[in-house]
């Protein structure tokens, strides 16, 4: 046990702080909702130049070219969070497409796409889920039929965030209709301006259209724009989904939320009594504090395992299930303690924190469902984590 970072890292932390002190004022005020604003792009370039984002991506592809160092990444994150500065552009192109190309793309693909993606010039969306293929992603039906050197794509995607603003899509399509379901899928990249693509906003229970549906009608895409070969799409996607699942349920975010609720319970009153003085709400707060702390320390444990290149086993598999649930419960406590104020929404008077507790309560439920429902997570934990048997295949009816 050693929770200190050591002198080399203390020095690095000092450098990061220097950067923040000198450049913090350049951080974007307007991030751009779907596409990064010019300010955001300038900030991103500055961060890359100083090795504060895209840190380990080779210089040849527009990154900073440092050796991977999880602690340095963590220090950067800690300092930016402490200074309340944005970390740079976070989008699915950067978090999912770039790592995929780095691992599996051709040299030409890497050269062409990574740099403009990192710099925020090219915005991507993800075409994985379909209305009929949620938990069972491998059953996807969007067809890509060969036609000379091209594929002709027909079908529909859903849960495609930023599709309305994206330049490009990385997309799973069925290219081998006769192969087994996991082996007939390819991972294609193509422009969203390709004729035949229609994007419709998808409104959710929060009242906002955080996602889109994307319809493909005879969309023509060159066969060469496949990543990692025909029929490899399922394996490519799983590599990237792993990244996404790791992102959900960040325990430090939960720590921030817990602090916000504790503050709120000190400020708000009912019949003149502070909410923190209501023993039943307070007890719930304390229960959640224990769970949040446990997941924060759990995060340290996973970080240590990464540093040592050890497999943390079941400890990794439970993160999404626990993290999303705790966040949902935190929002529930805030709503409950706020009484009727807790149900206000939209642009109502008396709204607290812009209605974000209700928004989080609903959106976190979406996260419990999305990216592998809680039921799928439990299947994975029991099978991969505990070695329990898969369900038997059903007999043909």
């Amino acid at each position, binding site marked *: 046990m050693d929770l200190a970072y050591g002198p080399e890292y203390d020095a690095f932390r000092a450098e990061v702080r220097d950067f923040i002190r000198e450049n913090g004022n350049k951080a974007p005020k307007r991030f751009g909702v779907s596409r990064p604003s010019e300010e955001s792009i300038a900030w991103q370039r500055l961060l890359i130049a100083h090795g504060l984002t895209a840190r380990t991506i080779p210089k040849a592809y527009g990154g900073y070219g440092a050796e991977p160092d999880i602690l340095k990444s963590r220090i950067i994150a800690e300092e930016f969070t402490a200074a309340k500065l944005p970390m740079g552009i976070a989008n699915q192109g950067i978090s999912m497409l770039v790592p995929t190309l780095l691992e599996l793309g051709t040299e030409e693909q890497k050269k062409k796409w990574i740099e403009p993606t990192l710099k925020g010039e090219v915005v991507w969306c993800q075409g994985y889920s379909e209305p009929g293929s949620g938990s069972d992603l491998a059953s996807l039906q969007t067809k890509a039929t060969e036609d000379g050197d091209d594929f002709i794509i027909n079908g529909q995607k*859903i849960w495609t965030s930023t599709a309305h603003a994206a330049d490009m899509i990385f997309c799973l399509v069925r290219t081998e209709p006769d192969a087994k379901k996991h082996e007939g899928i390819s991972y294609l990249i193509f422009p969203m301006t390709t004729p035949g693509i229609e994007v419709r906003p998808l409104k*959710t229970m929060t009242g906002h259209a955080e996602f889109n549906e994307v319809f493909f009608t005879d969309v023509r895409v060159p066969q060469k724009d496949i990543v990692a070969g025909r029929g490899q799409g399922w394996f490519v996607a799983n590599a990237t989904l792993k990244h996404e699942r790791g992102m959900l349920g960040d325990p430090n975010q939960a720590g921030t939320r817990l602090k916000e609720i504790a503050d709120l319970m000190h400020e708000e009153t009912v019949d003149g009594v502070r909410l923190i003085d209501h023993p039943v*709400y307070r007890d719930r707060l304390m229960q959640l504090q224990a769970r949040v702390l446990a997941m924060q320390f759990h995060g340290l444990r996973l970080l240590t395992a990464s540093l040592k290149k050890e497999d943390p086993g079941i400890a990794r598999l439970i993160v999404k299930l626990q993290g999303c649930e705790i966040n949902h419960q935190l929002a529930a406590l805030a*709503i409950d303690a706020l009484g*009727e104020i807790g*149900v206000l*929404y939209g642009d*109502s008077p008396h709204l607290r924190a812009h209605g974000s507790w209700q928004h989080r309560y609903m959106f976190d439920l979406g996260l419990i*469902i999305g990216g592998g429902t809680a039921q799928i997570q439990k299947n994975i934990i029991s099978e991969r984590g505990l070695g329990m048997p898969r369900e038997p295949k059903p007999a043909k009816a």
Partner: protein
Amino acid sequence: MEFGLSEDQKLLQESVRGTLERVSPLERVRTAADKGETDAADIAHALAELGVYGMMVPEAQGGMGMTLLDAALVAEMLGRYVTPAGFAATAVMAPIAIAGAGSKAQRETWLPKIASGEAKAGVAIAEAASGAREDASVTASGGKLNGKSLFALEAEAADVIVVAGKAGELHLVKGDAKGLTKVRLTSIDLTRGLSELQFDNVEAEALSSGDAAATLRRVVDAGRVMLAADTLGAGWMMIEKAVAYAGERKQFGRVIGSFQAVKHMCAEMASELEPCRSLVWYAAHAFDAMPEEASLMAAHAKGMTGDVGRFVARTATEVHGGMGFTDLVGLHYWFKRIGLDRQLLGSPERVRHEAAVMQGWAA
């Protein structure tokens, strides 16, 4: 000995169900929500034809003098169809207040109009029922009200509003009274009307013919039972929708309703919610026939449906997977209706505390 619905009650509920299925389908709810209608005229008209506004008005004032259990059956259906129409305040709580503590003149002025649906009534008693937030309170002096009351029910377009004052006394205020400002409060649930009322020397009549404190207690009890019934109806609709969706949606080559995890989620919802029906019935019946038990049972009905409702709303959404999270299937209207029910007129935590106090188990 019969703990159940009479044939008349079953018929009543079926006729409300039939009407609401027709006038309050999801598409209509959606339009109303989009337009900000919380008391849609067409639906209110259909409800008036059913006579629901006169249910709790005494026969002497042109109503039907029915029981709170009857009203609870209607509330259950309104929850089931997430109906954007006033009911709990105008048809139940206000008539109970006016019939209970109004003078003969007050009763005769308002109750017949409320019964016919010609006049709508709101209720501003949140501070008494759930505790004051932001130190809201209404004080009366020389026949004038000052202060503010938050979370008034169905008050926005009301012709008359029952207002609880700081000392637990009740007042009657006209909807268009001078000095009264109504500010719409938007909640997650766009099917029901909430407002803030601001009083600046607003003329009011006292409702003081009976025991006002006891009447306020009755109004709160009745309101809680209505909200409990609303959640019961909305919750069962969510379960039915979850079961239906799970019976159609296929993943991994099977309908998801054949997966044990999904089946058990549905079984748990049903087994948590169904006992609430008996508690709601009993609480309503106690209000009608066993007044000494009424407040305790209303509190427990409200508290239990609040907690079970949350579980059902969340679980039914999960069964729907991503679809439950979208606006497409509209499941969220039920989710939010249950969410609002939970917070109004006393949270589960508060009503449980009250229930303890009533039994001498807490100070």
